[in-house]
């Protein structure tokens, strides 16, 4: 499931949606709004997204995770709108029989979401300035993910 929302993300609710007696592991990632970026003090973040393509591309990413890693289920929710410090901007949860594949699939999904989905964030700084976050660091994360995340074969579908 891939969902975009302008409402606060409630991790407990999302976790409950993944309950499954065949699962021995849940790995969840939460992306939070932090108070600093590249030396600038951040006050809040504004997320803009093109929802139709975020949903279709996000579903593709999750489908790839389900095909490439032996996991049971994977969900992702991404916020839009104005977010204050400490708020959850993105949530990814993956269940599997064993923990290794859930960790790897969760990492795969968040890395792909960051580089593939049409989402933009504008940082509002304490000094009154604001600016769109460019993609250079995100592109770096994308390269990192494809290089370092083990593929399904390395984990073994039978584990």
């Amino acid at each position, binding site marked *: 499931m891939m969902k975009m929302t302008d409402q606060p993300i409630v991790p407990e609710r999302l976790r409950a949606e993944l309950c499954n007696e065949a699962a021995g592991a849940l790995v969840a990632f939460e*992306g939070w709004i932090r108070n600093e970026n590249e030396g600038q003090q951040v006050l809040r973040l504004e*997320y*803009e*997204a*093109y929802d*139709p*393509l*975020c949903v*279709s*591309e996000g579903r593709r990413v999750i489908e790839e995770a389900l095909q490439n890693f032996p996991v049971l289920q994977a969900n992702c929710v*991404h916020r839009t709108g104005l977010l204050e410090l400490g708020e959850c*901007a*993105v949530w990814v949860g993956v269940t599997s029989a064993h923990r290794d594949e859930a960790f790897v699939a969760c990492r795969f999904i*968040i890395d792909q*979401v*960051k*580089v*593939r*989905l*049409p*989402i*933009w*964030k*504008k940082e509002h700084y304490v000094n009154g300035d604001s600016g*769109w*976050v*460019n*993609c*250079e660091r*995100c*592109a770096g994360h994308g390269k990192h993910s494809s290089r370092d995340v083990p593929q399904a074969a390395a984990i073994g579908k039978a584990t």
Partner: protein
Amino acid sequence: MSKKITVRYFALFREHAGLDAETISTDAETTADVFRLLKHRHGAAEPLAHCKVAINDEMADWNSPIADGDVILLFPPVAGG
């Protein structure tokens, strides 16, 4: 041959263009041609390789052909998460 297309702008590109969308007549053959048009008309400076494009709500490449009536979505560098 000249075609009429709608170009939609997002985030930084919307700010460059000062509008959400515009319908234009163009000789552009590919999405890359449309991107160059954006740079020419609105002064966007972001490298093409860092940006993304979609046609009629489907992700596309920069060498994708465009047709009369297409809606081209120009995405500046993404930064989700």
